[in-house]
């Protein structure tokens, strides 16, 4: 399973990376050919809110179908980066490209809050995710299929307020998946869940990602979650990518393995050493 290949990068990419992240290990992992995901190229991305410069030049290439985790201290700009990728904020400078023209349904976001409509039953909430296909004849069938994928087919006629936190988040996942997105952005999707629910949700996320092959971008403050799920972990400090770490463990990931624990430790020490410097 450990098939990560180190391939040579284009000169411009190398040049732009070495400018700001001298320690970054630049690696591109080979993904299965059948991926439905889109590749992602980010060049010189900057974003400020008022006088506060949140992102100070991000250059990043994500191959199609890769699972990337973005970690960093709060306020480092990781959520902003995700919101820019998802098109929720305007770009100040630089570019984000997906290598082709995309439809709104191709990119989906899942937030820390489930953001379900409390006045719509579970199935209707999932149908919201179909976007412009909401009115189509197979909307019900597609929504039901997505619900089955997250294991909640029996809750289709339930009100969201009667679901547990983990179930709500699974409905939100079904809503994000129902349009078969090619890029799925997760903004701390498991941050509000208890430890056990978190682990089972992580397994679910890994499974649907492997089944559907979308490109996954996960923002999290939990380093162990990042190494448990991602092919690659980006550490963001002060609006820049400070480290780019490859996780070469087999899938499905074995939680608590020495390999993952070692990686987690080294990423944590990066984060903490940045703390010491300031």
């Amino acid at each position, binding site marked *: 399973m450990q098939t990560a290949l180190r391939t040579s990068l284009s000169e411009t990419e190398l040049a732009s990376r070495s400018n700001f992240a001298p320690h970054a290990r630049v690696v591109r992992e080979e993904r299965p050919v059948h991926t439905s995901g889109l590749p992602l190229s980010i060049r010189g991305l900057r974003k400020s809110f008022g006088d506060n410069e949140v992102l100070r030049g991000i250059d990043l290439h994500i191959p199609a179908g890769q699972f990337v985790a973005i970690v960093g201290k709060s306020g480092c700009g990781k959520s902003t980066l995700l919101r820019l990728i998802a098109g929720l904020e305007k770009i100040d400078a630089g570019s984000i490209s997906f290598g082709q023209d995309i439809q709104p349904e191709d990119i989906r976001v899942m937030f820390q809050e489930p953001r379900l409509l409390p006045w719509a039953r579970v199935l209707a909430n999932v149908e919201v995710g179909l976007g412009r296909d909401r009115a189509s004849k197979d909307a019900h069938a597609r929504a039901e299929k997505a619900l089955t994928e997250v294991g909640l087919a029996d809750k289709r006629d339930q009100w969201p*307020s009667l679901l547990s936190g983990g179930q709500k988040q699974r409905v939100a996942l079904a809503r994000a998946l129902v349009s078969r997105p090619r890029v799925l952005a997760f903004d701390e999707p498991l941050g509000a869940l208890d430890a056990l629910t978190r682990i089972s949700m992580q397994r679910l996320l890994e499974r649907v990602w492997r089944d559907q092959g979308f490109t996954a971008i996960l923002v999290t403050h939990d380093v162990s979650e990042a190494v448990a799920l991602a092919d690659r972990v980006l550490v963001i400090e002060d609006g820049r990518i400070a480290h780019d770490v490859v996780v070469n463990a087999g899938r499905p990931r074995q939680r608590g393995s020495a390999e993952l624990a070692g990686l987690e430790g080294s990423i944590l020490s990066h984060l903490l050493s940045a703390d010491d410097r300031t």
Partner: protein
Amino acid sequence: MSLIDSISLPRSIRLPRVDGLIQWILPLAVIAIWQIACVTGFVPTRVLPAPSDVALAGWKLLLSGELVRNIWVSFWRASVGFLIGGSIGFAFGLANGLSQLSAKLTDTTLQMVRNVPHLALIPLVILWFGIDESAKLFLVALGVFFPIYLNTLHGIRTVDPQLIEMGRIYGMTDGELFRRVIFPGALPSIFVGIRFALGIMWLTLIVAETIAASSGLGYMAMQAREFMLIDVVVLSILIYALLGKLADSASRLLERATLAWHPAFQKR
């Protein structure tokens, strides 16, 4: 689980029936004590007639057709005034909740008008409309306008912005966003407005009918006072109480039907 189910099952069947009765225990007890106080002469009938006398007066008026006619007139005034004032209030609430421009344009003015007690306008309204139907409708509509306006506005402004962002991400058009996110989100607050408005509706109508009218419950009460028919006066007051309760129950029923998703309506 099965043990708990078997215990709670009969209780869940019995409870609603008991609940329906519990709320009537107090009014019935009050009437009973009232009747006893009158019959024993503790309360002179010049001060307060016995409930049986009030019922008798009601029966006579019912037979003469006067009661039904007056109730109908008052009911008509209340509902038409409510519909007119409520729709205008709802429309302004929507406009000012959805459009910054509209809010800037009209909100300050509306807030100024709101602080004038609408019953203070009665002399002016009589000068404008006489003691015509339009005078009563105008006052009821004006009274009903503000609670509905304020609560619609508040409801729309407090819809969770995260849900609106979600709707936009999933490609909802403005119309869909309103229909599927903003309006359902504002509905609980709109219902609060409706229930406030129903109270104000009756209050306004009673005052207007007592001061200037030639039909209706308020008029009936004032006429009875002229002839010292204290049982009819008390009857009118009781009918107001019943109608008020009826209006409140109707709005609750509507609330239950449209807010079935709300956690507050999911018990039982």
